[in-house]
């Protein structure tokens, strides 16, 4: 173990990460099953292709979809960041975290553009 006292004081940032991790988990737990229910109703034949597209097109659906993607990205980003902090102990840590942040943001922007550009 380390002998030197590495106490750098408190960063006052741990709470927010923990909070958003949990909040995004709740949003995911509520919204993610919705997508499977939607798929299920299509497979059961309760919803045909046009009804499905209508639903995906609707404002409420786009809003929920947006929420889902944002929650997914927040959750995945914090999760990966924490894992990197756990196991990577060199300067590479910051590089990796920054890389993930950029990739996640690009993915999110692309997906949101898809959601809101859909159908017009």
């Amino acid at each position: 173990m380390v002998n030197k006292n590495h106490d750098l004081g408190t960063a006052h940032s741990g709470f927010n990460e923990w909070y958003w991790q949990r909040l995004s988990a709740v949003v995911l737990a509520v919204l993610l099953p919705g997508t499977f229910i939607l798929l299920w109703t299509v497979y059961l034949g309760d919803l045909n292709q046009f009804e499905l597209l209508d639903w995906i097109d609707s404002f409420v659906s786009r809003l929920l979809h947006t929420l889902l993607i944002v929650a997914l990205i927040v959750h995945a980003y914090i999760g990966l960041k924490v894992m990197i902090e756990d196991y990577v102990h060199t300067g590479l840590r910051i590089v990796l975290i920054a890389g993930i942040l950029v990739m996640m943001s690009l993915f999110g922007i692309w997906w949101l553009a898809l959601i809101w550009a859909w159908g017009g």
Partner: protein
Amino acid sequence: MTETIKLSVFRYDPEKGGKPSMQAYEVPFSGAGMKLLDALNYIKWHLDGTLTYRRSCGEGVCGSDGLNINGVNGLACITPIAGLKQPIHVRPLPSMEVIRDLVVDMDHFFDQYRQIKPWLQTYSPAPEHERLQSPEERAELDGAYECIMCGCCTTSCPSWWWNGDRFLGPATLLQADRWIKDSRDEATGERLDQLEDAFKLYRCHQIMNCMEACPKGLNPTKAINHIKRTLLNRKS
């Protein structure tokens, strides 16, 4: 015929150099009440005086003989020989620097304990007699005051293995919570301030190794969650 106990004990002397090794010993079984510490004492007193380990009270109150016993952390003095698979593998607490044989360097561990200021802090003028606590307020400290700072929990925590330089670890956090809960302490806000950190506190991922390792049956995970909940209440 006396039964014998087989042990395999970690040996290392940095001053002599060389590699750590496991040494085999055989010790007579002295009866149902025999604890692992009795076997180590037998080795030291009758077989091999060079074997080095810490112990003091011999009854689970001083916290000095935390060891890794067959892969599980515990106190040698209260671990019955009878339940252990043989040969009994005895190693120092994991992830700690070995000073010699089973003795590890606890400096950093106690440094972290000191960081949370484990003493009563008050600002109001001292009352004429003692600061009183109702039986209910006192009961809040159950499950925390029993901790003997043996380090069995902290050295079994993966989060502490990987980030022990900054993560305070279950033992220290259990004590941090003990002072947060203490009705007489008036520095609760500052204590919470000092813990709100992604490494000091939130590195705990609720793996619960700590709870399983604690020889006193305490639950540091619960205490850590209580600190997190208190921080949540403060913010929302």
